[in-house]
């Protein structure tokens, strides 16, 4: 095995990264130019004319789903938390079989460009399209905000490019793809990105595994030896079973309610290709998560957790640090460029889905009562694309430096609660009514957003971030002092050793400013603790720390909703309201049309062949 790394070029603007990224941009803009000449009407703009094959769409679906946040984030989580990161990654795959079994074929057979076409198939167009468009837009905007803030932050970490510049580059390029090339260009950008990401991750895994003799047992035994066997055991990820179940629901059924994913099923010619595309997508995404988890364990063993968290406390640079360590600057440059391309492709897909909700659902379906000429619809779709691109950049600027990780969870909560129940009931339940559908969508939306707002995730961690920080520090201090009190003599000896070590480290030359500051601070704390123990001040300090903790705890306004994930209630509520209101008053017209819907659901007679437009 090689030695552990001492330094990194992550965070510098490397010419190699720029070169690889420029190549990607040149190729994708070339494709956009090619696609622009094939994107003249609405069917081409929204659905690439229905001419994408199942295999291509499978790659594109995978491209839409595998975000830079999941690649870098899950590898980071595994490298720092071990097995808990693996548990987390499993949840991101399990929604795909649900998409296939319950949604993909009926969606393809019943709709035209968006999932709201399906919900509105036999119900009243206007209220349904308005509600579904709002559900789509809220999902897309939360997802987009998380992606944009993540994009700015990651690009700054990778290249040290200013946050704002990164956002403008991402915004300008994604607008170009979608505006000129529509779904065709977006699909090919996704395909290229998916191939690059899967290829890059595969290469990284091969290189990492070659360091441990291509032996998983050896990889795990080294991880276990270095970080104790607990690294390979479930830790603190799931402490509240109901909360975990709730998160599981959102992940599973949220995937089946994501507008940018659902929209992809209209790019294939028929239900058969639609189902094939989910099979390929599930395979690619599952493979990707297995690679990512391997990369995480590889980084923990070959690069080391301390080094990874030194670059970024959240561990997000684990995959890139591993790439640099075993593949050098060239491989790092390539992978960083791929991560950038990944961000770009995901936001392009989201923007297209949002623009479709605005133009196809809201403008045509609601304001023009379902009849607009194609030219006008295209104009609105293109204006909506530019508007959403600008909004995405503005959201990125607005939420700069904020903790937006919860927004991905929120997007999945809204997708599973507002979009999925109405979609499923409209396909399968004859008695489902317009009133039931509209109420179900708004109930799911309001419960998902409202409950997350009043949950600890937002109400405490975001809105009272400063307070939570004080409380965390006070709790840690009290715990530390309690530990000293258990065996003061040993604590004193340990602290002396630590102080000497730090003094020696500080005396060494060539420390960077960040390390210098951290070690100086650490030394000051260690010396203060030592003085405390030597002067018999421990008992008084313990009492003071406890009082601080109680005070901070008292000042923190507790979240009214105690769970982190509202899925059980928001999704359950959406189904319940939809069922009760549908049963309360029948809609004869909708029941009669269910016959035609059922025939189309199962055999596809009358399904929109987008390619025939």
């Amino acid at each position: 095995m090689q030695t552990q790394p001492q330094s990194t070029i992550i965070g510098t603007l490397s010419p190699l990264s720029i070169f690889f990224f420029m190549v990607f941009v040149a190729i994708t803009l070339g494709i956009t130019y090619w696609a622009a000449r094939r994107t003249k009407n609405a069917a081409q703009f929204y659905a690439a004319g229905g001419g994408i094959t199942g295999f291509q769409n499978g790659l594109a679906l995978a491209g839409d789903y595998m975000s830079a946040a999941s690649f870098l984030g899950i590898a980071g989580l595994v490298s720092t938390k071990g097995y808990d990161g693996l548990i987390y990654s499993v949840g991101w795959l399990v929604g795909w079989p649900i998409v296939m079994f319950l949604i993909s074929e009926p969606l393809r057979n019943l709709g035209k460009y968006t999932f709201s076409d399906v919900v509105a198939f036999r119900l009243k167009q206007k209220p349904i399209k308005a509600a579904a468009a709002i559900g789509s837009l809220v999902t897309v905007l939360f997802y987009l905000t998380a992606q944009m803030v993540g994009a700015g932050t990651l690009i700054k970490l990778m290249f040290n490019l200013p946050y704002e510049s990164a956002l403008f580059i991402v915004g300008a390029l994604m607008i170009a793809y979608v505006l000129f090339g529509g779904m065709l260009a977006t699909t090919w950008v996704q395909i290229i990105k998916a191939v690059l990401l899967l290829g890059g991750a595969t290469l990284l895994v091969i290189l990492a595994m070659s360091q441990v003799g291509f032996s998983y047992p050896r990889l795990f035994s080294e991880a276990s030896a270095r970080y104790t066997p607990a690294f390979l055991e479930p830790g603190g990820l799931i402490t509240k079973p109901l909360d975990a179940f709730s998160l599981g629901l959102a992940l599973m059924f949220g995937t089946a309610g994501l507008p940018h994913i659902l929209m992809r099923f209209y790019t294939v010619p028929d239900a058969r290709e639609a189902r094939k595309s989910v099979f390929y997508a599930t395979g690619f995404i599952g493979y990707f998560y297995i690679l990512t988890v391997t990369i995480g364990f590889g980084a923990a063993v070959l690069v080391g957790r301390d080094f990874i968290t030194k670059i970024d406390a959240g561990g997000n640079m684990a995959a890139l640090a591993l790439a640099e360590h075993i593949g050098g600057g060239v491989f790092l440059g390539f992978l960083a460029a791929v991560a950038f391309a990944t961000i770009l492709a995901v936001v392009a897909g989201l923007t297209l889905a949002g623009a479709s909700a605005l133009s196809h659902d809201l403008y045509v379906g609601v304001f023009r009562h379902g009849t607009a000429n194609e030219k006008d619809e295209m104009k609105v779709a293109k204006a909506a694309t530019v508007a959403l691109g600008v909004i995405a950049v503005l959201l990125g600027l607005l939420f700069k430096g904020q903790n937006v990780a919860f927004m991905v969870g929120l997007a999945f909560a809204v997708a599973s609660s507002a979009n999925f129940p109405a979609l499923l009931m409209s396909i399968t339940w004859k008695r489902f009514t317009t009133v039931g559908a509209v109420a179900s969508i708004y109930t799911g939306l309001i419960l998902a957003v409202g409950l997350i707002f009043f949950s600890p995730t937002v109400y405490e961690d975001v809105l009272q971030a400063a307070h939570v920080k004080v409380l965390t520090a006070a709790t840690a201090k009290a715990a530390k002092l309690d530990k000293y009190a258990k065996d003061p003599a040993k604590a004193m000896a340990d602290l002396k050793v630590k102080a000497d070590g730090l003094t020696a480290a500080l005396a060494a030359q060539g420390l960077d400013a960040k390390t210098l500051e951290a070690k100086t601070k650490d030394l000051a704390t260690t010396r203060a603790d030592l003085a405390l123990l030597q002067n018999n001040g421990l008992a008084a300090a313990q009492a003071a720390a406890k009082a601080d903790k109680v005070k901070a705890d008292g000042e923190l306004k507790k979240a009214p909703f105690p769970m982190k994930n509202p899925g059980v209630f928001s999704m359950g509520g959406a189904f319940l309201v939809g069922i009760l209101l549908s049963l309360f008053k029948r809609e004869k017209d909708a029941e009669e049309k269910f016959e035609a819907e059922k025939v189309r659901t199962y055999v596809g007679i009358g399904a929109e062949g987008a390619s025939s437009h």
Partner: protein
Amino acid sequence: MPPKSAHELLEDPEFQKLARQKNTITLILTVVELVLYFGFIALVAYNKAFLSSKTSEGSSITIGIPIAVGVIILSWILTGIYIFWANDKYDAMVKRVKDRMGR
């Protein structure tokens, strides 16, 4: 007599068989997937000791690792089972119904 309208088709035994088979298969597979994932989550929540036990004497690999990876692989296999059935049996049934209707 071949079915003409949507109404007649719904009464058609062959269509009914096709719809019933599809509902059964998708329902079973959906339930299997739910049990697979939430069973795994239940293990994490209620039986950490089992997931933390070693796969074999002297190995450092915990049982939790192959189980988690197994959930990912089995999920994909379930989608494979479905398209194997649908591409073969279901599409043939759909084609027969469509042919009889002259569509």
